[in-house]
């Protein structure tokens, strides 16, 4: 074996180079649809339907974007709706999960294991099943009659967040008991211990949970679709789906350029959000699945 390493190293280097080239090609092909959407938004209708397709728009036009912003679709209203629903969801989920996660993580009381197990076992249930009763509830309470009611209704199915409780409970186990006991000896109330000591220590976990929840709430498409009764109640994904709406089986596409502008507009906010908070996204994803 001793005469082999140099040969191996050379082979490994070329394998790595081939790997790098393959990766670049793969990344390009996975990003190609997004490129096609963005450039498509700058193409005239005649160009979007021409064969061969123009790989780079030779006569870029803003026509689609003008149509998007001045047309019948209240796109900025959709942004406000999406941001409002997602923020409301994040605030409520953080509040609820941090209290409950701390309770399960640090407090001893009869039945805590059973209660936690019941909660956790529902983590992987298909939420579409619960949507039917929740929809009937929202309908009977006439929540969709007011803007605030719609926002609350849209946040509703995410308020029970087994994942959030699980994440905070696990994170609480890193807080030393001595710290909490010391606070107790110093005469701090339960509530003061929670707000002054526990919450600050939970900050990294709460940040990851916030980013994760915001993204989830933003893309909670089916529920938004079911609830929104007019175009002023749409969230961005719902609105974009209506712009691009086609007869069944995709037989005709009404306005490709406008659809692409709508899609680009819809993707823009989450992509910026992702680039800004990439590390929190990754923390939220890897939490619980990977040791370390």
């Amino acid at each position: 074996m001793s005469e082999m390493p140099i040969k191996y190293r050379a082979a490994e280097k070329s394998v790595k180079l081939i790997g790098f080239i393959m990766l670049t090609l793969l990344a390009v092909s996975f990003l190609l649809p997004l490129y096609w959407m963005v450039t498509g938004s700058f193409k005239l209708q005649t160009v979007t339907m021409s064969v061969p397709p123009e790989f780079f728009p030779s006569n870029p036009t803003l026509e689609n974007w003008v149509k998007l912003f001045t047309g019948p679709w209240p796109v900025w209203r959709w942004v406000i709706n999406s941001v409002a629903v997602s923020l409301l969801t994040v605030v409520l989920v953080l509040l609820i999960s941090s209290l409950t996660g701390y309770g399960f993580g640090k407090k001893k009381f009869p039945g805590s294991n059973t209660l936690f197990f019941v909660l956790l076992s529902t983590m992987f249930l298909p939420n579409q099943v619960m949507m039917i009763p929740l929809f009937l509830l929202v309908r009977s309470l006439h929540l969709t009659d007011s803007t605030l009611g719609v926002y609350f209704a849209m946040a509703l199915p995410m308020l029970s967040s087994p994942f959030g409780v699980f994440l905070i409970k696990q994170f609480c186990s890193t807080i030393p008991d001595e710290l909490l006991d010391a606070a107790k000896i110093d005469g701090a109330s339960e509530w003061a211990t929670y707000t002054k000591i526990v919450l600050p220590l939970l900050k990294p976990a709460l940040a990851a949970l916030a980013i994760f929840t915001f993204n989830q709430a933003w893309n909670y498409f089916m529920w938004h679709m079911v609830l929104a009764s007019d175009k002023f109640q749409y969230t961005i994904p719902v609105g974009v789906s209506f712009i691009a709406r086609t007869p069944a089986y995709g037989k005709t596409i009404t306005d490709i350029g406008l659809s692409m502008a709508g899609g680009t507009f819809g993707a823009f906010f989450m992509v910026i959000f992702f680039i800004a908070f990439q590390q929190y996204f990754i923390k939220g994803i890897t939490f619980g699945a990977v040791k370390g």
Partner: protein
Amino acid sequence: MSQFKELAHNIWKGRSGYLFIAPGYLAFIAFLLVPLLFAISLSFYRSSFDISARQFVGFEQYIRLASDPVFKKALINTINYTLVIVPATLFISLVIALLIDPLDMRIQSFFRGAFYLPGVAGGVILSVVWLWIFNPTYGLLNYVLGFFGIEPVLWLSNAPQSFWAVVFVVLTFTIGQPIILFLAGLAGIPKDVLDAAQVDGANDLQKTFFIRLPLLRPVILFVLATQTIQVFQLWEVIFMLTRGGPYNSSTSLVYLIYQTAFISAKYGKASAIGVVLLLIILVVTLFQMRFWKDTDL
């Protein structure tokens, strides 16, 4: 008596615990547990738009589902989607993660972001552009395939193709999350283990098969479990691209639930389909948990 007293004492001692879990647990009961139980009970009723006029019919919804061809198609499709998408996602993301792992940290984070980006944009937004790419006359895909002498394909309006079109689009955004998980798992493999193998003369391929993959086992199982559950709930791409068509060839259980509950207002039937989906996911999860037990996670 003293046992009862002790329990009461412990409950009283733990009262702050109950207060802390109360908000979350009440939300859990109100918005998950009660709706779940209500959905299960609703599956034993026949119900249209006005649910106060629902009629108890026992197991009739389930009996009728058993001979419902659309339900059968949706069930088979859902299983087929899972059998195709989950292994493909696992394989592609594992290969990509193994290719990214040896690179510099900065290049790593670039590729990680690039593959995760389509998922961030979301299935709805991606479907908007795929509707255009799949267009039979002026879509990009048929144009590119034309170079290889392939005749224009009716991607969304022909029976087997519509299924594969959905599969293809879903794969473009499901791989991002597993790649991040695998990279985190690979980064956690102790360096000295790999170095020891190097000293023993193992090449990169051997290190991958005999060290990296076995050590990634917990992460692989986690990805398998979460992806399976996600694909079982496949809906938005079908809604955007094919509306389940043509002739239900690309429909899924969740798409059928959406259609039955929120378009046809048959809440009893939709709940019954939901309960079937729930049972399938339960069985699959329990089955996968048996594998989890063998690994020390």
